[in-house]
């Protein structure tokens, strides 16, 4: 017999755009701060870094976007959105005060309170895939004593394409954090690292002992980041990746995001590389 379902997981929480920040020089990346309207919804909301949410624009549709803020941050949820399709283009035209829907949090997130505890953490990010890793990093800095050494390797095409520039500067000042920011090519006014993320990862290459690496970026970056890590003794079970696929329902029913037997939306988006290696390459 069918069991009673009381909650409707397809209904978004009404929310409002509270702040908009243009992140990149080309204007295609914006960070939106969203505040859920009802206090009840705000109190109920609880996410893990690495999870995502469905953003709803009435009449346009829904899009899955990684949550860029840490649950430890108050005052709203952050989403950094690349303008790419119908819904993201509509979102980019929206302003502070506009209504929006938020459905989530969805997916599994990084195991920040379990497998990653007490480990040395290496965060490797390329381009705008840095968003959920920002959430993870903020969370870890908030619970700094729970983790060992933390290394951040983050690269973008140009200095102007780097996300969260002020925070990057602040992180570089910290003693308890090892931050390497790189851009693909020399650029006027840039005195930091130059080179692709895999190259920098190979140079920095932290020891794999009691460590975990969280890697988000374009597939090509992930592909070339692995060899230097493997050479340094890293194994697939120490490497966490966040997959993305086209999604509709976000709760493992509609069939769009499956990679073989797993649903990226429900079983992921975070998988160890060991898990990913057992799957068909359909992401």
């Amino acid at each position, binding site marked *: 017999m069918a069991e009673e379902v*009381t909650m*409707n997981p397809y209904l978004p929480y009404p929310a409002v755009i509270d702040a908009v920040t243009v992140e990149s020089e080309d204007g295609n990346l914006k960070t939106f701060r969203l505040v859920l309207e009802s206090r009840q919804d705000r109190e109920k909301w609880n996410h893990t870094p690495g999870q995502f949410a469905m953003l709803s624009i*009435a009449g346009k549709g829904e899009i899955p976007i990684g949550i860029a803020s840490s649950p430890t941050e108050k005052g709203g949820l952050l989403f950094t959105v690349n303008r790419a399709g119908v819904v993201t283009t509509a979102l980019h035209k929206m302003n502070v005060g506009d*209504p929006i829907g938020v459905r989530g949090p969805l997916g599994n997130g990084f195991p920040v309170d379990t497998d990653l505890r007490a480990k040395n953490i290496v965060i490797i990010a390329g381009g705008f895939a840095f968003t959920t890793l920002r959430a993870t990093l903020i969370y870890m800095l908030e619970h700094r004593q729970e983790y060992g050494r933390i290394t951040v390797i983050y690269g973008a095409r140009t200095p102007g394409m780097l996300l969260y520039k002020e925070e990057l500067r602040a992180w570089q000042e910290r003693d308890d954090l090892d931050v390497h920011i790189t851009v693909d090519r020399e650029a006027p006014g840039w005195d930091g690292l130059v080179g692709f993320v895999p190259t920098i990862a190979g140079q920095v290459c932290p020891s794999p002992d009691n460590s975990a690496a969280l890697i988000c970026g374009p597939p090509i970056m992930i592909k070339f980041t692995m060899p230097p890590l493997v050479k340094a003794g890293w194994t697939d079970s120490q490497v966490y990746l966040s997959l993305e696929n086209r999604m509709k329902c976000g709760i493992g029913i509609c069939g769009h995001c499956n990679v073989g037997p797993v649903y990226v939306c429900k079983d992921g988006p975070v998988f160890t590389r060991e898990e990913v290696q057992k799957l068909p390459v359909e992401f």
Partner: protein
Amino acid sequence: MKPLVVEKAQAGSWLRKLCQEFDVFGPVETKKGFYNWKRLDGTIVPHIPQGVAKVSIKTFFFPQPEVMFEFDARPTDPEAFRPIEPHCDFNPRVLFGVRPCDARSVALNAMPYREDPYFQRKRKETTIVAFLCEEGCLTCFCTLTGGSPVGIEGADMAVTELETGFFLEPVTEKGLRLLDYEFFRKPTAQEKSIAQERKKGAQKSVEDTASKLRSKDLMDLYNAHFWAAVAESCINCGACTFLCPTCYCFDIQDEALRGKGRRIRYWDSCMFPLFTQHASGHNPRGEKLKRVRNRFMHKLKYFPDRFGPISCVGCGRCVRDCPVNIDIRQVMEGLMEV
């Protein structure tokens, strides 16, 4: 629950009563040889054809399209985005003359749809009266999929057709509820034994396809040599996915007109290239072979690995209506040999 019998002469009166209380649907011959689900008004007792109707009963649990909620669509209005769930817009329903394969498909779909309120609500409000099969048709193969021509999985009532009446066995409380009238009598010992014999005589499941496929290595099946041959003739029309009672993938879209909007979902098909295409243009299943393989792998490996049974009830619709004669039975055979 005790079985009852309704004489064929009385069946019309019973159905009329049901039509007063429920929305009753049955297979009706709309074109010669084509049966489709139509609302019954109680004037006729439909002849239940051998085999299945053209369209599966998933349409009752998963309408095409289905309104998920409504909203005010002016994005500039601060009051705009308040999703409102639509009222349940249907009466309790009876599906009369469902074949066991279609009934079983509802039970299988309920596994992934466990937390889906729309599907569950419809299932709760729908009573399935299944007519057990005396003989199969050329294209059906329920016994290969873990089902049976006399199976009752997913059904609320099982019906065996007798010479002069129908032998009615309620399976659930919902089914029992349909017998809450005065048209019935207790079956005679002879009728009971006829119904019994019918079941005993039915073709048994030939082998446990699901457990065999579950025990095989996923990537071995994925990399099987025959996928290219299966996919070669496929034209990605998606007919199989729309006719299949256990193909349940959907798309969600917004529709807005003059400040009012609704979010709808409707049947989608993994045969279509856009199904998986990212906004960036990247497509994880951009090639036809990958899409064809995904459909069969989902039914025969991914689904059983997650839920147990294979996601196929052997109704044979895809075999019957595939324009290029792709036959899932051959794919099953191929996978079993890997």
